[in-house]
Each structure stands twice: as structure tokens, then as C-alpha cells.
């Protein structure tokens, strides 16, 4: 084997892709040729360095949030029977092996709350029962739109005017209205809109103002901005902001924490 032949096999050897025969011949060549030996040595060093930096230096791991999102999408794919059994109380963020057990526990806990276990229980479970369904609806519709589903936003916006006396804007900042439909969430008939900017999405829900009493667990942060009073639910992987416009409760939800939902006012009471 001459130098050129040996160097042609350089990366195959480094990547451990060379055949046994080639590897042996290269080794024999390197024992005789210090020039090639030095080139092999340096490239091996460089590759080890890069592997070290790339594999061990970059330790980003997927967030729990991503796992929840994926499992929720799998739930949506798993069919109707189970979804109906489970109702809308999704155990977002629970460790999965215990998921179904957790749902039974939650059902039991919910029963206790009904009997009157008091505020503590209500607080513990308010995320699952009050906010997760909204977040879930957001994830579902955004994914359905992304996968090519078409939901007539203009028709839903007309519904918003008629039913809620609320004028929906076609765009909020750089976010554009891309979908809208009527949905029943937590037993309440709502209008659900999706705004998008590139791959970021925000859901807007319109519900009767009186409905808010059902979700206000007393722990929402109150923030006033531009004379609007917002109620802010902000937990890991789930941001939902409420504000009132006349007799309508306007809800903005997104699982993208970078979006400033306090600046997300998607319309105004229609005149």
C-alpha cells in the first residue's frame, strides 16, 4: 500500500468503516511511513476532540413538556372509546406508567372534593380540571391545522359577533388568524380561534363572562396592563391568560412561553 492509498482510507478507518484487510494494510503502512502516521494521528485527535465536544458537551435533553405534548397527541390518536371513558381530565405531566392509576386517583379525589374536602383539594386539582382542558384543546386544534385541517375562521368570527358581541381581529401583531370553530370545553360552548406566526400558535377562546367563576381558583395572578385586567395562569408547559370584555371572557392560551400573552388582545366588544 502506498501513501495515497493509505490516505484514501483515512476517514473510513477513523469512522471504523474500513474492512479488516484494509485496516491491517493501513496499519502496516503507518508503521513504515511517519508522514502518514502523523496525518492519521492528527485526524484521529481532531475526531476524538469533536466527538467529545459534540456528544458530551451538548447535553440538551427534551423537556418534560415535550413528552407531555407527544403523549397527548398519542391520546388523541388512540380512539374514541377511551377518550370518552376518560373524559377531559387529562393527566398532563404525570409519569406515564402511573398515568391510568393517576386518573382513577384523580376521579376519587374529585369525588372527595364534591363531598367537601375543601379548598386545598380544589387547588391541587384545579390545574387538571380547569386549565389542562383548555391547553389540551389548544394543542389539538393547532396540531389539526398543522396537519392540513381546515377550520373556517371567518365563519367562526361571524359567530363571535353574533353570539358574544365580540369583534375578532384577523391579526394580532405578527400573528394571523388561521382557524376557528365552535367547541364544547368543560361543558361550556365556546368559540376557539387559532393564531399563528411561523410555527408559533396561540389559541383564543371566547366564553360567557359568568363561566369564569368556574375556573377562577383564586390563585390566578392579576396583572393590569393598558387598563385591562388580566388573570394569568402560568405553570410549567402551560400559559393561559384571561380577560373580560363586556359579557365575554377572552382566554389566550399557548404552550410557547416566549409569547407575551398579556399583549395578546385578539379583538374588542363589537359596537
Amino acid at each position, binding site marked *: 500500500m502506498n501513501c495515497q492509498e493509505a490516505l484514501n482510507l483515512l476517514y473510513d478507518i477513523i469512522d471504523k468503516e474500513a474492512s479488516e484487510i484494509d485496516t491491517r494494510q493501513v496499519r502496516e503502512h503507518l508503521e513504515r511511513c511517519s508522514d502518514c502516521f502523523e496525518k492519521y494521528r492528527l485526524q484521529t485527535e481532531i475526531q476524538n476532540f469533536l466527538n467529545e465536544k459534540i456528544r458530551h458537551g451538548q447535553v440538551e435533553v*427534551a423537556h418534560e413538556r415535550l413528552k407531555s405534548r*407527544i403523549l397527548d397527541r398519542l391520546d388523541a390518536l*388512540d380512539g*374514541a372509546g*377511551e377518550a370518552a371513558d376518560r373524559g377531559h381530565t387529562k393527566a398532563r405531566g404525570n409519569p406515564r406508567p402511573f398515568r391510568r392509576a393517576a386518573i382513577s386517583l384523580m376521579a376519587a379525589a374529585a369525588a372527595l372534593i364534591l363531598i367537601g374536602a375543601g379548598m386545598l383539594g380544589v387547588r391541587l386539582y384545579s390545574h387538571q380540571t380547569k386549565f389542562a382542558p383548555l391547553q389540551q*384543546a389548544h394543542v389539538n386544534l393547532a396540531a389539526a391545522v398543522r396537519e392540513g385541517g381546515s377550520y373556517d375562521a371567518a365563519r367562526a368570527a361571524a359567530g363571535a359577533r353574533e353570539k358574544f358581541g365580540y369583534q375578532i381581529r384577523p391579526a394580532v401583531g405578527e400573528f394571523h388568524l388561521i382557524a376557528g370553530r365552535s367547541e364544547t370545553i368543560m361543558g361550556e360552548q365556546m368559540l376557539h380561534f387559532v393564531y399563528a406566526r411561523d410555527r408559533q400558535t396561540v389559541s383564543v377562546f371566547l366564553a360567557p363572562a359568568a363561566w369564569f367563576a368556574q375556573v377562577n381558583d383564586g390563585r390566578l395572578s392579576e396583572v393590569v396592563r393598558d387598563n385591562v385586567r388580566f388573570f394569568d395562569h402560568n405553570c410549567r408547559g402551560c400559559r393561559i391568560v384571561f380577560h373580560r370584555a363586556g359579557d365575554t371572557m377572552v382566554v389566550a392560551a399557548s404552550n410557547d412561553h416566549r409569547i407575551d400573552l398579556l399583549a395578546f388582545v385578539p379583538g374588542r366588544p363589537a359596537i
Partner: protein
Amino acid sequence: MVSMTDGKAKTGDDKRKELEKRRAFEKEALPHMDALYRTALRMTKNNNDAEDLVQEAYVKAYRFWDRFEPGSNCRAWLFKIMTNIFINDYRSKSRSPMSVNVDEIDDSFLYGQLAATAPSDNPEKELFAKIFDDDVKRAIEGLPEDFRLVVVLSFLEGFSYQEIADIADLQLGTVKSRLHRGRKLLQKALYDYAIKNGYIKDTAR
């Protein structure tokens, strides 16, 4: 509740099968999430797109789970699905033409430069000590997508040439040449960073 899937009732048998499928999927496929996410990050260069990409890959994998052969390489299968989605939906719309003619970079580019810069027994040691994880990350993210894909699959994920060929739907020879060119570009980028940041002196120009 969102009534997207309401309608037909399922028999107990269907339900049992569905549960088995779900269990198998969670056991076989979900453990690869971190690896998929890592590669998705290098390819999309941002968290949100990376998460979306991984999610779409899993949704698709779940839909086509019956096509996965039990016992075969689930990790490679998932990467193939994700790579496919990336190539079709995510790769940047305006793919800039190569600004560097890779073939002009000598095979032992870094070696030549280092030897000229710091004549010593181990010219690379001094440089390596000064290059940060972030420099390497940026150098990889600066590679053109076609090269970046094979570099990431090889260096970061440790897939073999043949596995990369299967994942990215390329000829074996194409994988090798892209990897080779990707390597050269990476070395050049790291050298340029080193010069720019004053880690080494630019004596070779």
C-alpha cells in the same frame, strides 16, 4: 371536551390491541426522544421547531407503528421518519448556495495550518484547549443542511455510513462524500473561529 374522535364504539378486543400497541410504542420508541431532540435542535437551530419536529415524528411513527419490524433498529427507524419530515417540511426555504468551494480546502487543511502556526509535537493540543463547546455547536450549525445532516447523524448519533444512507435516503457514496466535505468545512470553521478570537495567530495567510 374536544369531540374530534367521537363516533364509533370500540369492542373490547380493539381496545386491548390499542393498549398493547401503545405500551409497545412507549417502551420501544419514546426512550429515543432525547436523541431525536438533540439532532432536531442541530438541524432546525431552535427549540420550538425542534420540539415540533420531534412531535411530528412521533405522531407519524405511532400511526405507522405496524410497519415497524419488532427487533429491528427502532432508533434508526425513528430518525428516518424525522429526517424525512425535516427534509420535506423544515429545511430552510432559501437554501443558500455554498459560499465555500469545499474542494479547495485541502484534506489535511487543519493539519497544515496548525503545523505552520505552532510547530510542535502536538500542534492541535493548544488549539483544542481553547475551543469551547459553543464554538463547535456554532460551527456545526453553520454547515449547509445537506452536510450538517450527515455530520450530525455520524458524529453526534454515531450512525454507520449504511445507516445514514438508509435514514437520509442517500447512496452510500453520497454519504461518504458529504461527510468528508462536512468534515473539511467543520475544520475550516473551527480554524476561522480560532483566528477570529485570537486563540491562534494567522500566520498562514
